[in-house]
């Protein structure tokens, strides 16, 4: 089973829930693996301290110009729909950061002068703790495209942990990175807070998941602040509320230090248990 933990708004508790839930499930004998797909700002590793057992460079394929046979016909620039190639009369310039790796320029070049070559965009690291593994995708600074790295991180998890419960900690937002992190999952948990911001961003995330035809459930974090509008919305939309995590400065302080929270705070542990029971019921 593959479950994505997402939210429209940032800072609602995705990483807190995914790290704690993974550790809790592992402690209770489940085969579980956690993947941090917030590749722009991966944070799960701050809460889970494992030993690194593997490090892989993640690449994307981009064309590299080879001048030997080039006739400067300009076909490559014509077929690139992302303005990643500029064809001059005596030089072909490739802008790798704009390249979407569609291969059109390379394969349609009449003289094979633009072979595709791997270019580094980030890395995938695998850590082991005493009872579960944790995979992190980390985008290099200055790289703009998170999607290929997210896809490769998920591929790694699928290949190496076919029978595990796979928890995917998604990036915030509603655009391409979140879609990539959710589109192959069996279930998507959306975490929000009971405020107008939380509701607004939850609505956007729910609409996105509807387009993807995903089954969803909501976790309300910092319950007790704000108002009831998120609960009313979920009732109207018939979205199950998996748990409500109590607003508590002690949780924030635990998080601030980078500690797992459920071993220390009882009401938080109850919420994690509720999530675990909910996932159990999904199978």
């Amino acid at each position, binding site marked *: 089973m593959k479950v994505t933990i997402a939210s*429209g*708004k*940032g*800072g*609602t508790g995705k*990483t807190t829930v995914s790290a704690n839930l993974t550790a809790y499930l592992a402690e209770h004998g489940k085969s579980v693996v956690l993947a941090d797909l*917030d590749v*722009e*700002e991966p*944070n799960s590793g*701050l*809460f889970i301290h494992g030993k690194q057992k593997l490090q892989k460079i993640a690449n994307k394929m981009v064309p590299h110009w080879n001048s030997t046979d080039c006739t400067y016909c300009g076909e490559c620039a014509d*077929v690139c*729909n*992302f303005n990643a190639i500029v064809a001059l009369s005596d030089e072909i310039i490739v802008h790798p950061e704009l390249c*979407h*790796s*569609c*291969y*059109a320029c390379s*394969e*349609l070049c009449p003289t094979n002068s633009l072979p595709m070559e791997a270019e580094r965009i980030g890395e995938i690291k695998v850590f082991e703790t005493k009872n579960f593994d944790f995979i992190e995708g980390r*985008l290099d*600074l*200055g*790289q*703009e*495209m*998170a999607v290929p790295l997210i896809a490769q991180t998920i591929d790694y998890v699928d290949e190496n942990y076919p029978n595990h419960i796979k928890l995917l900690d998604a*990036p*915030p*937002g*509603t*655009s*391409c*990175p*979140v*879609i990539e992190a959710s*589109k192959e999952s069996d279930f998507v948990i959306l975490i929000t807070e009971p*405020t*107008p*911001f939380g509701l*607004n*961003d939850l609505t*956007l995330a729910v*609409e*996105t998941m509807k*387009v*993807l035809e995903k089954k969803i459930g909501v976790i309300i974090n*910092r319950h007790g*602040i*704000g*108002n009831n509008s998120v609960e009313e919305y979920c009732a109207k939309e018939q979205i199950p509320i998996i748990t409500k995590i109590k607003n508590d*400065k002690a949780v*924030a*302080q635990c*998080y*601030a*230090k*980078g500690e797992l929270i459920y071993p220390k705070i009882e009401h938080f542990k109850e919420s994690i248990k509720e999530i675990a029971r909910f996932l159990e019921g999904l199978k």
Partner: protein
Amino acid sequence: MREIVIISGKGGTGKTSISASFAYLEGSNAVVADCDVDAANMHILLDADFSSKEDFFSGELAVIDESKCNNCGKCKEVCRFDAIEQKDGQYIVDKISCEGCWYCSRVCPNDAITMVKQKAGDLFVSNIKNNSTMVHAKLGFAAENSGKLVAKVKQEAKILALKNDKEFVITDGSPGIGCPVISSLSGANLVVLVTEATVSGLHDLKRVVKLLKTFSLEAICIINKYDLNANITQEIEEYLLKENIKVIAKLPYDETFTQALTDAKPIVQYNDKSQLSIIIQKSWKEIKEIIRSRY
């Protein structure tokens, strides 16, 4: 015209609450740009009226004309995005996976594939509280190209500021370090970093600071929830000192932040005499002094 971009790396640090407060304080002398187009929220705090709306087109989608298609499968063969599948004998395009690269359309021997421009979102220009104007956007559900929409929001805000002789553009950026953030930073005169005293706040701050360096942008920082953890606050301060980034304010962990936003008001409007409001007012004054001394 001077552009101030507020970013945070990590989400949920208070970036939008602080940006909206700056916008409220400056009123009609600023144009506001909400560049967090994935999850735009400023309109809630600033009472945007969505008075003008424009469709935003970006990216294309391959559409197969079944009457012209002879099911040769060439399109599927060249597609690197697994966007073409065969269903009941007919090749069809998966809208979500199609990247709009045109490759299939170019190689189709029967010209059965056309590329259709996609609506990626809506762009709004709104009247907001304190006689000001805001440019904001709503990305289409499951749409892409948020970087381009960010660029469009910024461009519109700058045009409005120049046309109406406004001194400031106040830009609320998006979280992360990828394409929407890089797009929000372009052309900024000063970057305000909003971080929080947590291990993730510090981790993400370091990543955005490195990113700023590659663009040679000047930044200052506001530490939110500084009293959550004194050691981390100290670590943040030491790090920023080394990086030559001035900490202009430290805000305490305070649920007034949430109360104000539940009431749909910037903090400085919700209670202008509160400790938080006073610090934010002082910060905004200092930001203006810094930027005016440079540009």
